[in-house]
């Protein structure tokens, strides 16, 4: 369920850049702290914010931090254009506007008592990291946690220290792969779908949450269904060009849905037909 911001959703709130840390050559994690007079809104894993870089523009960015920490908002951003480049080059102490959080979240409450299967590709691990925090902090409420993560190459993998830490957690299986590995890489090489055969999935008791490029999600869904997961137990995070973030402008319309308001997280059944329409 979406959390409705209590303040005017169109009005950016001032946040201070606390820290920018480098994850990969082009991807950075920003911690933003609210200015003294305001509080960071609670968020649901999977929700996003609109980040305003003053003088440059506004960007929709998924929240990648710990939902239990209410004194900050954390985002992982890939620097691919002028606005993202400007955002990741903000210095500590500079000010950024934040609207949100917006949109639907991952079904972390509905998944209680069940195995949680997180499948992420590339920067798609960022919106899923809050789910992992939530499951690990409430370990007895969930069954097994299976994290399947694929990246382009070893140097493109996010959160490498955390992945190693998560792998040591009870009832948690972390499998990481890269599409291209150099001779020095001792881990798995192959696309993310090749990890499923090592994952010991129990389809009847699993809920899968998938985030990555759309084509990757299609391959993953095929694999999940092949392993016997029901469509009702597969959730995806969709990405489109969000502008207003509250369903006014229509920029992110996806068939009958607005990604910003009805998504970004959808049950697969809701969007399965749309995924096959390349024009959308």
């Amino acid at each position, binding site marked *: 369920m979406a959390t409705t911001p209590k303040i005017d959703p169109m009005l950016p709130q001032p946040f201070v850049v606390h820290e920018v840390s480098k994850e990969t050559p082009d991807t950075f994690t920003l911690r933003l702290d609210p200015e003294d007079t305001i509080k960071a809104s609670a968020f649901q894993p999977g929700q996003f914010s609109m980040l305003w870089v003053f003088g440059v523009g506004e960007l929709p960015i998924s929240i990648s931090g710990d939902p239990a920490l209410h004194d900050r908002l954390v985002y992982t951003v890939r620097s691919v254009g002028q606005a993202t480049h400007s955002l990741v080059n903000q210095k500590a102490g500079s000010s950024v506007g934040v609207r949100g959080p917006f949109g639907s979240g991952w079904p972390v409450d509905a998944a209680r008592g069940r195995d949680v299967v997180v499948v992420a590709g590339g920067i798609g691990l960022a919106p899923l990291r809050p789910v992992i925090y939530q499951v690990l902090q409430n370990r007895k409420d969930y069954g097994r946690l299976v994290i399947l993560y694929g990246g382009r190459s070893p140097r493109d993998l996010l959160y490498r220290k955390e992945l190693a830490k998560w792998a040591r957690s009870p009832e948690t299986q972390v499998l990481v792969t890269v599409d*291209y590995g150099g001779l020095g*890489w001792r881990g798995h090489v192959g*696309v993310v779908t090749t990890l499923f055969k090592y994952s010991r999935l129990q389809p009847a008791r699993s809920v899968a949450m998938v985030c990555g490029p759309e084509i990757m999600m299609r391959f993953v869904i095929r694999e999940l269904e092949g392993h016997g997961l029901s469509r009702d137990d597969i959730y995806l995070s969709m990405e489109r060009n969000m502008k207003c973030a509250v369903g006014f402008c229509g920029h992110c319309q996806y068939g009958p849905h607005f990604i910003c308001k009805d998504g970004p997280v959808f049950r697969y059944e809701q969007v399965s037909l749309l995924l096959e329409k390349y024009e959308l």
Partner: protein
Amino acid sequence: METLERIIAEHPFFAGLDGGFTNLMVSCASNVRFQPGTYIFKEGDAANTFYLIRAGKVALEVRAPQHSPIIISTLEVGDILGWSWLLAPYQWKFHARAIDEVRAIALDGKCLRTKCEENHDLGYEVLKRFARIIEQRLDATRFQLLDVYAVKR
């Protein structure tokens, strides 16, 4: 102690195989072990064996002039390594290197080819199983070719 018969009979690759055929497989099988860094086979070598990996990880490498070698795929416990033994000219297309200590069951492809020629029911069962693996790896290769995580500019 696990016998070759039991390991082969219980391996998913051979699931549903008639008991007589399983015995034929066992007669072509032996336990092998590779130290980390050693090559199990190299591109261009005669391909007369395939392997059921029981422990460790194997890297499939491609080498080309003026390119650093790259690992295109890794195979692990439970995976089948090698199908070039099945199709003429029976030569390996890649290098296969043990990343860590690898224990496997080697199946004599030359022996199996002869038995498949003699018994087409066995040949069909073997081909069905390899076709499934080839399909899975072709799918994975197509997905890999899309390079989905690259920045599109």
